[in-house]
């Protein structure tokens, strides 16, 4: 049920490296540009793409992603349009896993059952919903798993060994370790501590463990890739993109390229760390 995700991690294992997971916001700075960016990501070296569902009140996100969401909403992005962009991406790329990431309210308001059907049909592989801890699994996680969508859980530095099994229980696809206590795009983590944390999580699950929050450069990506099965980068890509927008937050001829340039650097960082290829 999570075939595209599994196949992609398997491919990375075969290549003896960690996966690069990129996050950009759907509809930012406008739908067509965000689709162009999405399409460019795998070509620049992204293995898995996360597409942000804009929300007015992203309580776990830092300034970069908050602003990205508001830019998207300002030009009229909504859940229907986001699924439509994924449909168009999927028409050209049948292999790259697409993860929708956001907050529960727009999904709840869309209607959970209808959303799951539409998301699956559009070509979504998994969901990351920040404000749904295991305590609220009935809401979306269990229905998603039934539909055949991976529900990817966040594990954090506050998730202790006692709690970890509950967090991992209904997780599918991969586990997303949040490297710091904090919001996206904030502090750069202590990479040594992150490696220890990943090790701890791997004792509890056979799933790949990816690490995100605070990864900004190829050097950071390489540091994380040493210990983790994947590296997630979001705010840094959005910052790079934002730097190219005009005074009215409109895309310019440099917008897509600014993102792909950084993705190439991150990809080189990830690929610079040789990991043991799967013995199988």
């Amino acid at each position, binding site marked *: 049920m999570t075939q595209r995700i599994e196949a992609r991690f398997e491919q990375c294992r075969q290549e003896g490296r960690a996966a690069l997971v990129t996050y950009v916001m759907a509809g930012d700075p406008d739908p067509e540009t965000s689709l162009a960016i999405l399409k460019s990501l795998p070509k620049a070296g992204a293995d898995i793409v996360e597409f942000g569902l804009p929300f007015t009140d992203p309580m776990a996100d830092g300034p970069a992603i908050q602003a990205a969401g508001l830019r998207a909403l300002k030009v009229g992005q909504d859940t229907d349009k986001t699924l439509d962009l994924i449909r168009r991406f999927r028409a050209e790329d049948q292999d790259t896993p697409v993860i929708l990431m956001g907050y529960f*309210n727009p999904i709840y*308001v*869309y209607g959970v059952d209808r959303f799951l059907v539409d998301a699956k049909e559009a070509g979504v592989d998994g969901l990351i919903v920040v404000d749904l801890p*295991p305590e609220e699994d009935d809401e979306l996680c269990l229905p998603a798993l039934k539909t055949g969508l991976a529900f990817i*859980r966040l594990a954090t*530095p506050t998730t202790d060994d006692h709690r970890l099994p509950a*967090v991992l229980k209904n997780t599918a696809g991969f586990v997303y370790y949040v490297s710091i*206590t904090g919001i996206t795009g904030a502090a750069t983590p202590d990479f040594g501590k992150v490696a220890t944390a990943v090790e701890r999580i791997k004792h509890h699950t056979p799933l790949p463990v990816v690490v995100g929050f605070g990864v900004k450069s190829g050097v950071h990506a390489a540091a994380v890739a040493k210990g983790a099965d994947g590296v997630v980068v979001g705010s840094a890509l959005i910052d790079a993109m934002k730097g190219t927008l005009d005074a009215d937050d409109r895309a310019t001829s440099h917008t897509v390229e600014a993102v792909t340039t950084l993705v190439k650097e991150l990809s080189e960082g990830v690929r610079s760390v040789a990991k043991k290829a799967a013995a199988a």
Partner: protein
Amino acid sequence: MSAQTQPNSFRTGPDERGHFGIFGGRFVAETLMPLVLELEKAYEAAKADPAFHADMEYFSKHYIGRPSPLYFAERLTEHLGGAKIYFKREELNHTGAHKVNNVLGQILLARRMGKKRIIAETGAGQHGVATATLCARFGLECIVYMGAVDVERQKPNVFRMNMLGAKVVPVQSGTKTLKDAMNEALRDWVTNVADTFYCIGTVAGPHPYPAMVRDFQAVIGKETREQMMEAEGRLPDSLVACIGGGSNAIGLFHPFLDDRSVEIYGVEAAGHGLHKLHAASLSGGRPGVLHGNRTYLLMDRDGQIQDAHSISAGLDYPGIGPEHAWLHDMGRVNYISATDDEALEAFQLCSKLEGILPALEPSHALAKVMEIAPKKPKDHLMVVNISGRGDKDLFTIAEHLKQDIV
């Protein structure tokens, strides 16, 4: 009125997962979930500890000035010519509003938990001032998040917080009002997990906040019960309170929810009117998920949260406490609304007839008292919660009445 079956008791919620019917819950990021569970455990322990209750009673009496009087508003009663109107005088509390009841409880709890750094969100500034006050009293670090728009329109309260030693952080994100202040407080909490206690100002947020804040505010209704028995030898016939998040209202209502003879009215802020900009989540919103709980929210078709509007910064929030959402669906409480203009009129009437300047928040409740009381018989006992005093609103009121203060 809803067709749903009514429960045997309206006072047993929430369930162990923090739900009032479908409302409430714990919709927070994983980083915060262990903290929310730790808080729940600590609160359960405190509730069972007589020493905690003794501290609450001591500081309620000697620091806040409880019990607050239940006052017979004789001239307003005569003027309206119907129900006998009583004011529950929460505006006489230290810091000038009901907010301090809850803050005292949370700060005593934070001390038990060994937390040294207190964060809070504030809209009008009343909760921020109450938090800054108790942090000063107990020597705790205090950081108050306040929307940049609210910082501008509530300058006296910002100055008060500064004088009390708190740090006020103007929030520049989103719409720069109360909901964004709450987002920013949550972002702080997610970052400073080890030493920080988040003191939420209303009956919202993830479980256990809605139940815990209600418990701390229920002193309002408990006192009212006793005071009315003393004054009239029986329970009141109706209760009226204003609702933003709904903490003063639930505090008054909760001890009476199972007394079915008591009519209960919650008054939301209708702003410019329910078909224009307003802050009436129950009258104009739908169920959704924000700030840790499911409740009625003002939002667009796509689930994006909309700006609320009220003349009263304290009611200017696009959601409402989950227990109110449930009581609304159950039909136990009548939720109605008052506009900015109606509240202003009630403010002036109360000031002139009773010599009491109510805050703009309870002026909304008074506006509906003006409507309901004349239709009731003279032996009908009505209690309205005067949840705060109007001094903080004088600049706003002067502006609306086109008068100069100096």
